[in-house]
């Protein structure tokens, strides 16, 4: 087996060359090649992290804008509700005031009308007594009697009172 012929100086030379060449590889890798790979990977990590950060920030901004929008919407809605309620209240107040005024006027008119009716009835009742008295005097005269004015008045009054009571 050629690998075990340790008398062969080429085997020893091979070890020396191995140390030189492997040392070279280690030197190049440790000082030039691997730091470069490291830098590229680090750059990518940093960039991804930065992008993620930016995305998170954008999301936070969007969320804030959304919240502000929602808040302002809610405020506007509340204001609108308040305005509607105030307008309703005012309209109701006006309507009830107008209705009250109307009621008062109607009541006044009814009162006046009732008073007029009462006066008219009183006048009518007064006129009725005169008419009844003269009618009774004329009837008594026609019948042939001579009517005592006082007795006639008393009789008419009695009859009227009886009617009014009946």
């Amino acid at each position, binding site marked *: 087996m050629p690998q075990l012929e340790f008398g062969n100086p*080429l085997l020893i030379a091979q070890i020396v060359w191995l140390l030189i060449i492997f040392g070279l590889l280690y030197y190049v890798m440790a000082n030039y090649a691997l730091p470069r790979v490291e830098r590229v990977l680090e750059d990518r990590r940093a960039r991804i992290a930065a992008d993620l950060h930016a995305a998170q920030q954008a999301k936070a901004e969007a969320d804030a804008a959304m919240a502000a929008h929602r808040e302002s919407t809610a405020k506007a809605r509340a204001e609108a509700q308040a305005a509607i309620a105030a307008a309703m209240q005012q309209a109701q107040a006006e309507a009830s005031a107008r209705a009250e005024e109307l009621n008062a006027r109607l009541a006044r008119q009814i009162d006046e009308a009732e008073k007029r009716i009462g006066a008219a009835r009183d006048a009518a009742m007064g006129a009725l007594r005169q008419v009844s008295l003269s009618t009774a005097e004329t009837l008594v005269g026609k019948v042939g009697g001579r009517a005592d004015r006082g007795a006639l008045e008393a009789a008419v009054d009695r009859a009227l009172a009886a009617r009014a009571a009946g």
Partner: protein
Amino acid sequence: MPAQGWAGERDLAAEGKTIDALGQFELKTVLGPIGHSVGFTQSSAHMLLAVGLITLLVMYGISRQAVVPGRLQSLTESAYEFIQGLVIGQVGPEGKRFFPFVFSLFMFILFGNLLGLLPFAFTFTSHIVVTFALAAIVFVLITVVALMLHGKKFFGYFFPEGAPIWLAPIIIPVEIVSYLSRPISLSIRLFANMVAGHVMLKVFATFIVLLGGLGVAGPFIAVLPLTVNVALVGFEILVAFLQAYVFAILTSIYLHDAVHLH
């Protein structure tokens, strides 16, 4: 005996129809008299080639520095993150210092194994002196790291705390032997896997040639060892990755022991 790949037909011609499975491991100097004077063999040439390819892969792969990596850059980054995950996972955050070493080790062995599978190529990881030298580097590293981090307490590693004192004469030699056998098992595992694989490939490749020359039916029978060899190459690619991985993960485990002492 030119140390070509396992499919080298000239071996057969030179040996005269016998199976020579070990000739592929013979060292030959290259680069003429200069290479001869400094003992620069095809093994060293393949080491240099592996180092060049690794450097090219990492440097060229990452040269575009794209945020969204292309295919080659993905390969570079996957290799980087795979080994980094392995080292950090085994050693912990302190393992970051050793990452370039384990990365170099893994890539060097992996490229050595894979390059050796190419026809006419030489597999430097099939030489025990190479694997043992790599294992010795690991052994020296873990011992020096343990001594630097823990000083005298490192020797407590050989006698676990809480063990009854009368067991010391048994435990201490066992622990010392198990510690010293680390580089040996590490190097022999890789060496033996590579040698066995390449010997098998060479034997079956020789069968193909020998059977192919046997009259009319020969080429048809030769299809059998060819099929075996196709399967073997696939298997050897798996072994190439697996052995590089095993070497790297055992190194990481030893580094963990060195950093944390159990």
